[in-house]
């Protein structure tokens, strides 16, 4: 579902937990992408004794710590789908919204608007249908993919008795063929999320400048305010 703006009144869309979640997730994703990149292409060697250095160890530790934050926050966010307001549901409800013709109408309209074929877009309180689709297919599925493949790789280190191995590695690795394939796809997943981030940041800045409501400050204070 997508809710269009009705009047010129400010609307409270993003509740505090959603805002906090957004920024923690963003930070975790940056840490994961940077450390992940250096796990695959490590920095130049450090001199000295091995026992005096732990560079890649710390990088991997940061990756795994951020990974747990990323995963736990996503789980809490899923809880908030049920506890939060209707806007907290939007990006998770995409498969259900897709059953509605009006949602598709909004999606096409929004697409035409971004293709410069329509002058004005409809105004929405939460996300427009195109944004919802991007959030669902790029952000949400992308993140779940990273969690599943990431924990499958993690379980290889913790060993066959661990819950990570039983829950993830045991079926993910045979599914992809072998461990090297899981590494490659986990790595491609990073680029998928980077692609999402590029588009996301661009659209947010663009809309903040050119639309009739606030966008960036909404994720800070929660209010969607029509601009004068």
């Amino acid at each position, binding site marked *: 579902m997508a809710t269009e703006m009705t009047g010129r009144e400010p609307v409270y869309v993003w509740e505090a937990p959603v805002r906090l979640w957004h920024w923690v997730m963003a930070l975790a994703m940056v840490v994961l992408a940077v450390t992940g990149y250096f796990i695959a292409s490590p920095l130049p060697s450090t001199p000295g004794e091995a026992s005096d250095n732990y560079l890649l160890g710390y990088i991997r530790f940061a990756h795994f710590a951020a990974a747990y934050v990323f995963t736990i926050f996503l789980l809490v966010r899923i809880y908030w789908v049920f506890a939060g307001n209707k806007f907290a549901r939007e990006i998770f409800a995409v498969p259900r919204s897709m059953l509605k013709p009006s949602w598709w109408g909004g999606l096409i309209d929004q697409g035409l608007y971004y293709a410069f074929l329509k002058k004005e877009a409809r105004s929405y309180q939460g996300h427009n249908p195109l944004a919802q689709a991007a959030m669902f297919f790029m952000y949400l599925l992308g993140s779940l993919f990273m969690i599943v493949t990431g924990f499958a790789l993690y379980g290889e280190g913790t060993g*066959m008795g661990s819950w990570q191995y039983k829950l993830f590695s045991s079926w993910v690795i045979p599914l992809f063929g072998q461990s090297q394939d899981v590494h490659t796809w986990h790595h491609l997943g990073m680029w998928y999320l980077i692609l999402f981030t590029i588009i996301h940041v661009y659209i947010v800045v663009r809309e903040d400048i050119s639309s009739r409501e606030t966008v960036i400050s909404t994720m800070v204070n929660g209010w969607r305010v029509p601009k004068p």
Partner: protein
Amino acid sequence: MTPTFYEVMRQQGITRRSFLKFCSLTAASLGLGAGGATKIAHALETKPRVPVVWLHGLECTCCTESFIRSAHPLASDLVLSMLSLDYDDTIMAAAGHQAEAALEDTITRYKGKYILAVEGNPPLGDDGVFCIPGGRPFVDKLRRVAKDAAAVVAWGSCASWGCVQAARPNPTKATPIHQVIDNPVVKVPGCPPIAEVMTGVVTYIVTFGRLPELDRQGRPKMFYSQRIHDKCYRRPHFDAGQFVEAWDDRGAREGYCLYKMGCKGPTTYNACSTVRWNEGVSFPIGSGHGCIGCSEDGFWDKGSFYDRLTNIKEFGIEANADRVGATVAIVAGAAVAAHAAVTAIKRARSAKSNEKVEK
């Protein structure tokens, strides 16, 4: 009456002392704990000998070469002498019709009781003409012998996954054995597998009369539950961030980690870093070369042995994840810039026309 294993060994001239040594060695390598050696000894003394039939399909015999170099000469002598009593077309004394008769004899006499060990795999292309032992396609022989086998062991990466003959484009349609027979298969991958792992697996099956515990892909957990990387002696250099960056640099001389040279230790399940090779002398990483991942499914098709990020063939181009990703990111960045430019121009234009209207 079929003689027991112990009786056979004694007939082969093995002393009781050596026999007990073999039992404790094998118990240790299987990780059976304190009582293990006695259990193995007892089983071998009381159980009738289980015949083993060893078939060779499309392969290079490196598994056999590895096997006959088992660290403890006794282990290989022993298991080998038990094996060659039945059928192994590479190492048995008999040849030709005589050998085929021995096979017939074993599989009828010990119906449902013998162990089938398979080295290599059947090529299914062109009705199997690429591997014809005894005048028939290998796949026929394999299916017939497997039908009444108590257990089937796949030796090496050929029998387990397909290995080099199944590498893209696999012209002969070489096929791993579990895809052509219905029996449960114990996979002992590696090109070749480690000798002690091979004797360990055979001994486990014949002494306990059951298959060892297997992982999801059919490999015995006692030897394949950890990666090379988990027990590698260069691992402290990995964690420290100390890598060989070129084959002749200082790091190479200091024995740094081979990760950047494409070592596949982090993605390869095998016992090389603990059991090692050639009587425990060394293993590839010990000699300064990265692991090539020879015991992993399809390792020939996973790009260069010397790249950390291997090429992705799925997209029909030769590029690794970073090259694919960076290209996509650059294209997206350019698209964003162009879109922003068009947006700015449109806004400027509409602002102008608004001004006009206001005037």
